[in-house]
């Protein structure tokens, strides 16, 4: 059987007045039911555009898929008509947005908004949808759901709004839930609650989750696979444990080194990745990360690396990923995140 979602060498470019912005420039991954994929990278690395491409929400023009394919249950969704796309959106593939403060419509009651996808896709009556919305609110842990459903968004706190957004995304029982930085706008304790809620929901519904974040710490306990993106390209992809414990790309190392940790003495300062992500219109020659890479060699400026399978199921787009001496430089430097074995579930 075909996997739930296949993204196959996706190239999403934007044709703007200033030039072609290669927002997504070669991304491949597959997602199975019940699994979680963490997509990690800095701002502008193409994470969100990848997500929006799967939702078919990239405005075209200026956006255009110049190469590659996205298949849902084995069927390409790029050629679908507007109507068929809408049938998938919010129904089979749902999305949670970054900022819960602005992602609910201020003029409708919470319950009405959660009921809307049900009315759109399941043809429920107003009454049925309302009852279902109240049930959903209970499921995402909103107390006194009957009353709270009648509230307006401005009466909800950030954490509650994000719960409401999750309820809205879950309404139709989607196969895939895309969460674009779902916890970035929330404070740390609420973050933990929201991630926990998403895990709990996944266990109950077997939906697949694509979790987009710039924070490796957020995906650490949730993701089965991790995709690291840089300048529109996948630079590392593999099972979460492999990416965390044996990173094969200097960019991933850089990200790991820049996470604050409570299990290491707090003497040293964090090590940032120096510099800025490159402009996506004029990428540096060779490896796009080379100008910022502390370990770059002259070859890096000349040869563009491909994403290759270095170990079984573990891909890297570094020219020296197979060079054990090169990798060893980091083995000595990187103090691993979460040195203790991780607990799951």
């Amino acid at each position, binding site marked *: 059987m075909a996997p739930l979602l296949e993204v196959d060498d996706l190239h999403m470019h934007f044709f703007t007045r200033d030039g072609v912005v290669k927002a997504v420039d070669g991304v491949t991954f597959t997602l199975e039911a019940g699994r979680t994929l963490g997509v990690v990278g800095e701002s502008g690395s193409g994470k969100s555009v990848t997500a929006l491409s799967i939702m078919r929400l990239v405005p075209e023009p200026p956006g255009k898929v110049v190469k590659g394919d996205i298949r849902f249950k084995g069927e390409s969704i790029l050629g679908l008509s507007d109507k068929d796309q809408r049938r998938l*959106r*919010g129904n089979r593939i749902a999305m949670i947005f970054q900022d819960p403060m602005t992602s609910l*419509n201020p003029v409708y*009651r919470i319950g009405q908004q959660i009921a809307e996808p049900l009315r759109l896709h399941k043809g429920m009556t107003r009454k049925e949808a309302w009852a279902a919305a109240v049930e959903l609110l209970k499921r995402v842990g909103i107390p006194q759901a009957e009353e709270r459903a009648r*509230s307006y968004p401005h009466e909800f706190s950030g954490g509650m709004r994000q719960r409401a957004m999750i309820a*809205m995304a879950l309404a139709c029982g989607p196969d895939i839930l895309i969460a674009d930085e779902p916890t970035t706008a929330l404070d740390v304790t609420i973050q933990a609650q929201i991630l*926990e809620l998403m895990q709990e*929901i996944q266990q109950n519904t077997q939906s697949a989750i694509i979790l987009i974040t710039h924070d490796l710490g957020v995906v650490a306990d949730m993701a089965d696979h991790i995709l690291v993106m840089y300048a529109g390209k996948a630079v590392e992809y593999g099972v979460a444990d492999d990416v965390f414990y044996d990173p094969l790309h200097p960019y991933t190392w850089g990200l790991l080194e820049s996470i604050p940790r409570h299990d290491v003495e707090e003497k040293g300062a964090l090590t940032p990745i120096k510099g800025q992500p490159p402009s996506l219109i004029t990428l540096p020659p060779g490896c796009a990360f080379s100008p910022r890479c502390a370990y770059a060699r002259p070859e890096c400026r000349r040869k563009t690396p491909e994403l290759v399978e270095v170990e079984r199921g573990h891909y890297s787009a570094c020219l020296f990923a197979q060079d054990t001496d090169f990798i060893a430089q980091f083995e000595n430097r990187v103090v691993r995140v979460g040195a203790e074995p991780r607990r799951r579930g």
Partner: protein
Amino acid sequence: MDKDLPSEKATESPITGAVVPPSLASPDAERDQLGEEFELVTGPARSLRADAMRRLRRNKLALAGLVWIVLVILVAVTADLWAPRWLGDPVEIDSTTAAQRMLLPPSWEHPFGTDKLGRDIASRVVYGARVSLIVGVVAVAIMVLIGLIMGGIAAYYGGIWDAIIMRLADVFFAFPYILFAITLIAVLGRRGIENVFFAIGFLGWPSIARVFRSSVLSVKENEYVDAARAMGASTPRILIRHIMPNAVAPIIVYATMSIGGAILTEAALSFLGMGVQPPDPSWGNMLSDARAFMQSAPHMMIFPGLAILTTVLAFVLLGDGLRDALDVKLKE
């Protein structure tokens, strides 16, 4: 992230049937966890509309405007029941008595006096209110309808549509308003109230379109619009259900004020003889009649003039009050 979860034994949640840590399992514990959030949500749900009504009620000037408008509407609607009997027919000329009754100053019998044909001015002002209100409301309705469609298309679709519609609006702005209206009415042929509606509505839409366009452009950037698309809503549904309600506040304000403007324009057109035709009364053509008697019978000019002034002012005050009431940013 959640490495520091409480280490007590996990239990099954009664709601979801999922295994959750005990700290989340019972409703009471849940309340503790969400305690901070609970603080924020106590108190009755209050809608934006209720909020706006409350703020409007506090604005004395706007309220005065509203009261005056309601009064004018009541007078205009019920005119047939009392005006002809108490004051006299607004149109018919009683030829036997006309000679004695013309140009009388205000008195108990004729509170606003009579005109050059012996008709009661109060009665004519009352019937003139009908014309003014109908013109105001219908013309603005036409204007808002065209303006919303044009502005909505320009803002939501952007690009070439935006360019075409907004340049067309610029062309409309470039013409002198009254002259354009007169030309339009002349081209349409028959002089009458329908043409006045049409002319005002047709010429007024560009302002509405501009205001609505900028409003939609700012609302469109909100994440809930993306969320609605991600939910699978169609474009018309997003425009009507998700964008309109959030973008329409400045239109309500602008339309209210425009009713005043439309009443003024109708008066101007009737004054110039392009609007309502004699013998039917309209505040504009009454002013026109009064010109010749400005010194001998100033009441002929004063009362229709006052009617125009107060009614237009009332709409502007109400519009101003609505602006303050609907502006979320002005929250006390």
